[in-house]
């Protein structure tokens, strides 16, 4: 193997930051390769959440007592921290959600339902996650709009598709930034430019991109952008909805109630300022504060370095797997420039579910199934794949443990 097992940072030190990585599974060392589902959390994030509950737990925004003021400041500042991290202008462009799915629904129901008209079309890729496909199906059905799909081949949007599918009748475009099945990166800039020429608004699903590579939503010129906090070292129950100010002004809240109002009368109400009008009810305060700690952690390490490290470790695994005739790897080959830290594969005639279970015996945590992309799996002609997804703390040795685990699968299904 020609790979030089180098990393732009000290991986052993990084691993020490993540308590769970020390555990064993049935006596085997844990090799956690299910990061596209959720990442592990560093001690600093766990501490930020604990500290909130231990020292200043209170509801936010309107309390005049000290704890509430401290909680409000930390929670509101977390929005600034995230805004800076993703390249948003300011906190008014950053709404905290529970997850990416909530962000997509907020756009589909708050914007899509009111701006996609009969005869319009909505353009998606063939590799959308169910969470960015199903909400748009609801919009299309309710408003008699057409759904169009950019064809993908091995995780790459095919040549000419963007020009062919996005036209003057396109009202909305919603595209995945990094595929959770292939780890490939969609050319969002081209898609956004084309959509804007035709007056369409664009939502980018960044659930898999923000945790793994530098992202600048301003430079990208996305109208809406969603991501999840728990895949980027933050707590579960944290997610982000970004919107350009003008796009947010076109958007209706999709949840109503406390915290999002300005003036309420018995018959009607008006909405408070951005971003709070999109955060009805008591928000996930501890999670938002934990997410800001996660952003600090990632920035300390450096997103460029994280991206580089993951690519190299993934490439190491991919090269070994590509050499094995009994392993089918989906997506572009290891030398493809736009390949992130996700490997979808199958082993001989073993079903993905069985592969994943046997890998777990070796301590290797992967995911198997349709990865919330059932139509794509049908397109690929496979019922399911096993997915290994890498993150900033995974090592070359863990890539090798995956390959050794695959040997066990081959033995059982020989």
């Amino acid at each position: 193997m020609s790979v030089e097992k180098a990393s732009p940072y000290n991986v052993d030190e990084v691993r020490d930051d993540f308590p769970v990585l020390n555990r064993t599974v049935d006596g085997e060392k844990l090799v956690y390769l299910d990061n596209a589902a959720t990442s592990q959390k560093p001690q600093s994030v766990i501490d930020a959440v604990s500290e909130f509950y231990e020292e200043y737990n209170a509801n936010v925004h309107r309390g005049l007592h000290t704890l509430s003021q401290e909680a409000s400041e930390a929670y509101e500042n977390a929005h600034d921290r995230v805004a800076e991290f993703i390249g948003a202008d300011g906190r008014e462009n950053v709404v905290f959600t529970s997850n990416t799915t909530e962000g997509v629904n907020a756009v589909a129901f708050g914007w899509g339902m009111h701006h996609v008209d009969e005869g319009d079309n909505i353009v998606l890729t063939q590799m959308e996650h169910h969470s960015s496909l199903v909400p748009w199906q609801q919009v299309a059905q309710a408003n008699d709009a057409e759904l169009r799909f950019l064809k993908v081949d091995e995780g790459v949007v095919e040549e000419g598709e963007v020009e062919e599918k996005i036209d003057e009748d396109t009202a909305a475009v919603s595209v995945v930034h990094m595929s959770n099945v292939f780890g490939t990166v969609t050319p969002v800039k081209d898609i956004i430019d084309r959509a804007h020429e035709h007056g369409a608004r664009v939502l980018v699903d960044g659930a898999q991109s923000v945790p793994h590579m530098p992202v600048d939503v301003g430079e990208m010129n996305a109208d809406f952008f969603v991501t999840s906090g728990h895949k980027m070292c933050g707590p579960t129950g944290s997610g982000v909805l970004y919107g350009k100010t003008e796009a947010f002004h076109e958007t209706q809240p999709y949840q109503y109630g406390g915290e999002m109002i300005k003036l309420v009368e018995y018959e009607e109400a008006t909405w408070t300022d951005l971003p709070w009008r999109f955060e009805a009810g008591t928000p996930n305060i501890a999670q938002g504060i934990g997410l800001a700690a996660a952003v600090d952690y990632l920035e300390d390490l450096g997103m460029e370095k994280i991206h580089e490290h993951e690519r190299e470790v993934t490439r190491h695994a991919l090269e070994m797997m590509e050499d094995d005739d009994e392993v089918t790897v989906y997506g572009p080959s290891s030398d493809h420039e736009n390949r992130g830290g996700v490997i979808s594969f199958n082993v001989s005639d073993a079903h993905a579910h069985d592969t994943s279970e046997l890998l777990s015996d070796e301590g290797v945590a992967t995911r198997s199934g349709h990865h919330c992309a059932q139509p794509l799996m049908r397109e690929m002609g496979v019922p399911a794949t096993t997915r290994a997804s890498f993150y900033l703390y995974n090592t070359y040795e863990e890539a090798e443990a995956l390959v050794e685990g695959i040997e066990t699968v081959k033995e059982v299904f020989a």
Partner: protein
Amino acid sequence: MSRDMYRQRILDHYRDPQNYGTIDDPDVTYEDVNPSCGDEIQMYAVVDENDEIQDVKFDGQGCAISQASASLLTEEVKGMTLDEVRQLETDDIKEMLGIELSPVRVKCAVLGLKVLEGGIVEYEKEN
């Protein structure tokens, strides 16, 4: 160790399932999927005047556990009455398989039974 799950008998039934295929014009037919992993099973059965299963077949695709247990189930239920089939439970399936199963895999193991019972419910509604 879940490796114990993949005993030869399970793998044999996975690779060479018994009663695999379809039945034209079946009395009982039903299909269902396990949405978490994409296992799919269709069941077809022919029932005689005493409500006994004369013939049964299944098709579909999925993991070794789902396919092997469907195969074993078809062997087991031939000759049983519909009432007897409806009394089968998860433990009976575990016994047929003869292995320990984690909670996630129990769903795979009982999919065939769930489908067959679903078909029987439909059949009894119509008759």
